[in-house]
């Protein structure tokens, strides 16, 4: 990255070079304190999430059977998890039968080694890439760079992120944290072949990217992609996209490598009729995305003559083992949950410290990394352990999810796993408070006494919110206010109102 030196105008987001793709930052609250200060970021996010939310609402309302499609999608995914071993071997057999090569990779290092070896064998020093969460997750670009191979991201947003030295902050629109003026800066200083006098007009910026990437598409020997789904029954792999960079990568090079999480397999070709309705409408808010490509192995005389499918675990079997957390694997990466999340809208994706941000990231990342397992991360102050707490549990994500992942329930479950990795635990302050509350609420005498005490405090504080309490109350007031207490208890108020007439 020596070409980046001496060009201080573009500052990468986040500023410090990140570590592991699933765990790069401080804990969520610490990172959020940073990102919340960035008013530009918050303004960008507000506009962007609102726009996409409205579009999604419009096109999902258009289909009278939207809820039935969601039910079918959820059931198909549950079925996939239940039959995963047989579906994976079926997929492997069908890809192989049609001339493809299937590889298995237990973790990021294995997957990166497999891909690097394929690229080396093809004799390529440069590869073109289709936007892919799986390859982000395993840090493939860095691994290729270490082997002297230049991986060129070809999705516009992904290219912006790559040129800026950023981490992605959204599953669908990784550069959502950058506005047009910033992108103009990034292109002007980092692209190398940006046209002189480039404006910040989105069309002009997109055309600059087209010109920048065209020659690379035409000369590429090897392409690397992810997969939105793969059909076990036929061996067919599908990639859903908008710009045509996907088609370029999937069609023009001689060698194609696809890295796919094992959970992306679908049983039958017919299942496409469900997911090709759910995904585009939930994701970009379009009736259909501009381009969807599907291929099965290799087709003589059409497209790559060599196809490799890398099946990736990298923590997925860990997630699968947790019955309550398992539905996180149903995710189709549409990003609808990010766009409706009040927490995401304010903090942005970088606060989550993982390539998977937002509500789905808050349940997926901890599970992929083995939250609460022996040797795994845990605790509310850990970068990964804090993620299940990055939520108000408002449920907007559950409502938006096209495959009905109950994210709020998974979050609650993972909070438990984060705080009490070994299952059983000594009673916490919350537990004790709950026991106390149960006693008080069960007794009229105690409740009256508590009401009287609360009213006393209410009168002393003038009914205003309380910002500070001594320990152990400080555990609460350090992060939030206690709402103002009333000057009279409800029962006292009721008694006066009724005048004890009955």
């Amino acid at each position, binding site marked *: 990255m020596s070409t980046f030196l001496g060009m201080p105008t573009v500052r990468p987001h986040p500023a410090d070079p990140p570590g592991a793709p699933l765990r790069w930052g401080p804990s969520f609250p610490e990172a959020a304190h940073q990102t919340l200060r960035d008013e530009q970021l918050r303004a960008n996010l507000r*506009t*962007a999430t609102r726009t996409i939310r409205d579009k999604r609402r419009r096109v999902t309302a258009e289909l009278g*059977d939207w809820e*039935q*499609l969601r039910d079918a999608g959820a*059931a198909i995914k*549950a*079925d996939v*998890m*239940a039959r995963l*071993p047989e579906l994976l071997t079926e997929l492997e057999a069908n890809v192989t039968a049609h001339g493809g090569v299937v590889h*298995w*990779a*237990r973790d990021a290092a294995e997957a990166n080694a*497999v891909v690097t*070896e394929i690229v080396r064998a093809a004799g390529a020093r440069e590869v073109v890439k289709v936007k892919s969460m799986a390859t982000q997750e395993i840090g493939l670009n860095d691994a290729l760079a270490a082997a002297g191979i230049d991986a060129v991201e*070809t999705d*516009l947003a992904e290219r912006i992120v790559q040129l800026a030295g950023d981490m992605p902050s959204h599953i669908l*629109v990784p550069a959502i944290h950058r506005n*047009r003026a910033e*992108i103009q800066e990034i292109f002007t200083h980092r692209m190398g072949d940006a046209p002189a006098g480039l404006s910040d007009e*989105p069309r002009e910026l*997109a055309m600059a*990217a087209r010109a920048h990437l*065209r020659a690379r598409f*035409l*000369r590429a020997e090897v392409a690397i992609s992810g997969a939105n789904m793969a*059909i076990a*029954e*036929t*061996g067919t792999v599908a990639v859903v996209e*908008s*710009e*045509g*960079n996907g*088609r370029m990568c999937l*069609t*023009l090079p001689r060698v194609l490598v696809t890295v796919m999480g*094992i959970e992306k397999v679908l049983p039958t070709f*017919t299942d496409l*009729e469900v997911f*090709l309705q759910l995904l585009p409408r939930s994701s970009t808010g379009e*009736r*259909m995305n*501009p*381009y*969807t*490509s*599907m*291929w*099965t192995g290799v*087709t003589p*005389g*059409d*497209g790559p003559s060599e196809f490799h499918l890398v*099946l990736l*675990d990298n923590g997925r*079997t860990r997630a*699968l*083992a947790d019955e309550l957390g398992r539905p996180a694997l149903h995710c189709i990466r549409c990003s609808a949950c990010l766009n409706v999340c009040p927490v995401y809208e304010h903090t942005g994706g970088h606060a989550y410290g993982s390539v998977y941000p937002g509500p789905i990231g808050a349940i997926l990342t901890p599970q992929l990394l083995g939250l609460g397992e022996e040797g795994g991360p845990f605790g509310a102050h850990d970068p990964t352990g804090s993620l299940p707490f990055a939520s108000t549990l408002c449920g907007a994500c559950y409502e938006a999810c096209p495959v009905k992942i109950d994210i709020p329930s998974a979050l609650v479950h993972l909070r438990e796993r984060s705080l009490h990795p070994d299952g059983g635990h000594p009673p916490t302050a919350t537990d004790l408070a709950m026991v106390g509350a149960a006693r008080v609420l069960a007794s009229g005498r105690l409740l009256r006494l508590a009401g009287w005490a609360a009213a006393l405090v209410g009168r002393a504080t003038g009914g205003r919110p309380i910002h500070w309490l001594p320990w152990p109350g400080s555990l609460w007031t350090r992060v939030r206010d206690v709402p103002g207490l009333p000057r009279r208890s409800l029962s006292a108020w009721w008694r006066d109102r009724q005048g004890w007439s009955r």
Partner: protein
Amino acid sequence: MTGPTVREEMLARVRTALGPQPPAPAGVPRDYRRTGTLPRGSAEALDLLADRLEDYRATVVRSTDDVAAAVAALLADVDSVLVPDGVPEDWLTGLTGTVRDAPPLSHDQLDNVAAVLTTCRVAIAETGTVVLDGGPGQGRRALTLVPDRHVVVVLADQVVHAVPDAVAVLAAHPHRPLTWISGPSATSDIELVRVEGVHGPRDLRVVIVAAPTGGGTLTASRT
């Protein structure tokens, strides 16, 4: 290459994760619309397809019998038109500068062709989608990707209402390379402002043919 041990270990991990009593395969409720309500090739289906394609900023031309004239008008301003094998010869009468993919053109040669003319396999009215499966008149995938203008002729009986209708048609040949096209290429990556025309053809023009024009070649793409 990964040895059989990695494969076996991953499958074993999956089985272990599912536990000694793996969850029973779930039944899938399919009470969503399995077929569209508009009849295949109906005037309503054609109207809907035209409306949805125009919504994506594709150019739509309705034709009844003179496909050649419609095609010629859409390609009058270009000097080279790539024509894959299987496009009916009588559609080409008004064209000059036709180019064939025989022997197969290089990427750079394709990049110097202005436009491509194809048939399609099926079209989905509700989503404004045209699907190519490499059948007669559609060519290999690169042909409809590199040239900047794609003119595609859709015949009435190729137009279905909904996505499940199209998947049923395509299931006859699931192994063919499929390209689903819904408008020209587009991006919304900069402030979610939609910009039409990025890497794929920036200019998509669709001829919707309402009535059969006669001649057995028209149904060739539905083998």
